[in-house]
């Protein structure tokens, strides 16, 4: 187990290093931050001085090495745009993204499982068919279109919900939360739906398929034969056995919700790390881009690592194979 863990951690670090290397080699093509940092009356000397000061005249692998050296000490540099430490800015913006991801994840899970069960049990009803048809929209419509559509219906036409921002935020010192005010909660609704719709339809279709499969199995038929009530069969016996793959998929999707909040955050001017990243690309704010990409890859690598370790713990065959392999 220990050897397995060490090897997995080692592989994860390698993945991170490669990600960083690729990211830094791409930054050259993103553009030049100098023009955004200097006004139109700058001289050639100003350009060269700033380039030298920021280390932009060095090849990318030198820039990457410098970044790694500093990052190892917990220092991600200063944002070109704001001049403030990148770590500080990320920490400031992270609560907005995490709260949004949490709410939309929760919504996707509850809505997805509920609708999945419903469409599995009433598989030929008119309502189920229309839900299934609508879910196609959720899978196929691009996120920004859903966002803009929701804004026009609920903010512009009906005026019920805000079109942008986070509403009133309560500062707890280490965390800013929108959960404690009415306007904060209202501001969450549209972006959460936009971000969670795809995941919700995905989970719904998954639950439905799994459920239909389980409902066909022998033990469900026997349960029916025993005269158990439908409710007990559906929820106590069938649903439980459906949830294993659902939980796996949901765990993996959580990472993508955070990573792909970028578009939703841009449409709703949601002040999270995704919006920060988009702004950083526009401004060619390399330290912010680098830190964000590293943060996201750490997150994905971390989730995968945990999943791997869980499999190892759960599935005895993995262990058997390993000791068997050693014997030869």
């Amino acid at each position: 187990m220990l050897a397995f863990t060490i090897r997995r951690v080692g592989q994860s670090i390698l993945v991170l290093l490669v990600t960083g290397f690729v990211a830094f080699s791409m930054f050259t093509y993103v553009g030049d931050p100098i023009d955004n940092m200097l006004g139109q009356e700058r001289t050639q000397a100003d350009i060269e001085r700033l380039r030298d000061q920021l280390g932009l005249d060095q090849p990318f692998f030198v820039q990457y090495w410098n970044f790694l050296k500093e990052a190892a000490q917990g220092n991600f540099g200063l944002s070109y745009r704001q001049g403030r430490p990148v770590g500080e800015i990320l920490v400031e913006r992270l609560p907005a993204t995490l709260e949004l991801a949490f709410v939309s994840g929760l919504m996707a899970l509850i809505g997805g499982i509920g609708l999945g069960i419903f469409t599995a049990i009433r598989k030929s009803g008119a309502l189920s068919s229309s839900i299934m048809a609508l879910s196609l929209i959720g899978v196929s419509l691009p996120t920004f279109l859903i966002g803009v559509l929701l804004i026009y219906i609920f903010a512009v036409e009906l005026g019920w919900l805000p079109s942008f921002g986070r509403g009133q935020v309560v500062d707890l010192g280490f965390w800013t939360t929108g959960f404690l005010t009415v306007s904060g909660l209202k501001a969450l609704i549209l972006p959460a739906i936009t971000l969670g719709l795809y995941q919700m339809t995905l989970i719904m279709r998954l639950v439905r398929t799994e459920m239909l499969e389980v409902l066909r199995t022998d033990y469900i038929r026997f349960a029916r034969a025993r005269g158990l009530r439908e409710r007990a069969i559906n929820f106590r016996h069938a649903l439980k056995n459906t949830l294993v793959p659902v939980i796996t998929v949901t765990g993996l999707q959580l990472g993508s919700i955070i990573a792909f909040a970028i578009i939703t955050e841009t449409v709703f001017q949601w002040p999270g790390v995704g919006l920060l990243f988009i702004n950083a690309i526009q401004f060619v704010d390399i330290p912010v881009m680098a830190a964000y990409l590293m943060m996201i890859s750490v997150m994905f690598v971390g989730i995968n690592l945990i999943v791997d370790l869980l499999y190892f713990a759960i599935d005895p065959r993995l262990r058997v194979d390993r000791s068997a392999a050693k014997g030869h």
Partner: protein
Amino acid sequence: MIRSTLTVLAFAAAVPASAETFRWASQTDPSTLDPHANNSTPVLSFLGNVYEGLVRRDRVMGIEPALATAWEPIGDGEGWRFSLREGVTFHDGSDFTAEDVVFSYERAASEGADTASWFAGVTDVTAPDDYTVEIRTKAPNPIFPDSIANWLIMDSGWAEANGAERPATTEAGYATLNTNGTGPYRVTDRQPGLRTVLEPFDGWWGEDRGNVTEGIFTPIDNSATAVAALLSGEVEMIEPVPVQDADRVEAAANVRLIRGVEARVIMYGFSMDKDTLIGGETDGNPFQDARVRQAVAHAVNVPAILQTIMRGSAEPASQLVGSAMRGYSDALPDRPAYDPERAQELLAEAGYPDGFSFLLKCPNDRYINDESVCQATVAMLAQVGLDAQLDAIPVRNYWPELREDQFDMYLLGWSPGTFDAEHPIRFLVATQTDRIGTWNFGGYSNDRIDELLPQVQSEIDEDARQAMLDEIAQIVQDDAVYVPLYVQPLLWGAADNVDLTQREDNFFNLRWVTVN
């Protein structure tokens, strides 16, 4: 604690009657609150509400007294003497004196300050007494007072106490997030990229100020979101309104479209210092021939571009500055007429009867509908036999490419910082050196213009100065150094219940806002 509730409470105690909140959104958040760290419109426009200069611009861009009450030339053009306003205090209560002006000069002109170019001709700044400042220049500079409207004055004591003696450009300093100006509003909350709150400064010396008691600024990047926020009444003003949404804002209830003309002229430039073209097989560089450049000027159908792509919002331009700028040449009101046959004749005279192919470089996210304008141009040039290969790229890659000469023809927009015709001549037309001609990517060089430019800069007599500017404008048009297309429109959206003023430099002044 709830931030906005607290501010509302604190505010209710101070001003019991009629609280008027005004919320506005713009595409760009000021990157810093330091008035000397970034010479850009978003920063200087926003800080103009908080800090003040010796002079300021009124609603129609005229220069009027601000922290200085009067000014006069010293001797025979040795410089300018400013008499300062007495009884002015900074937001923290300290007095404004000549020492602050001298300090702000040293700060704004220091190495690394982005505003240093404003003081390129200044030799020294002295304070004979507490309320007089003398600014000496190398050569007579008739437009100096006009050129420093955005030079904002900072309190020397405050800056020294907080270690902000020099502008913080690459590393945030105290003045990046904190302010202490003399202006009509003070910053009460600053969250970079999220929201900035302004409240009236009770000790302000001036009178021309509307009734806003709390101004909340939010950057909204996505223009569709900004329009939605305006239509749903969540903000009272947005800028800019995208051209394609202009009609919608105009038609919607409770909001209106404010249409104006920006100081920015959109034009085409040419590569003139390269021996061969990048995007073609032609021998030599046809763009070195003025007739070829004139042919382009005749081939581009500007009225059609304005009608279809700019939807009637922009005005054609004949010079490098718009008609409202100082030094505009009244003798040249019209741009070369759209005349494809004349263009073909000119090309034939120059030895290219069958045209040639070349690389047209354009930004796709810098100016209003820039890429569409370039696409339309490609089609128009094709009609006279010119084969333009369009490469439209994001602005963050655009300037580096232009600096590396990766173009044969390119699109450029220029807004004269001084609102004077001398500005584009200095940066776009003068032969390139370290200090001037820094945006002359095409490498144009004309001895007569280089000879006239310093004279324009130091000529005190208005008529003589204008005569020289007229001559330069004529040369620029005859030589077709640039092909000016149009003056970019300025489109703001505002709620019907607010009065506000749109200024040509796209600056937004909160003190001209009245909420009804």
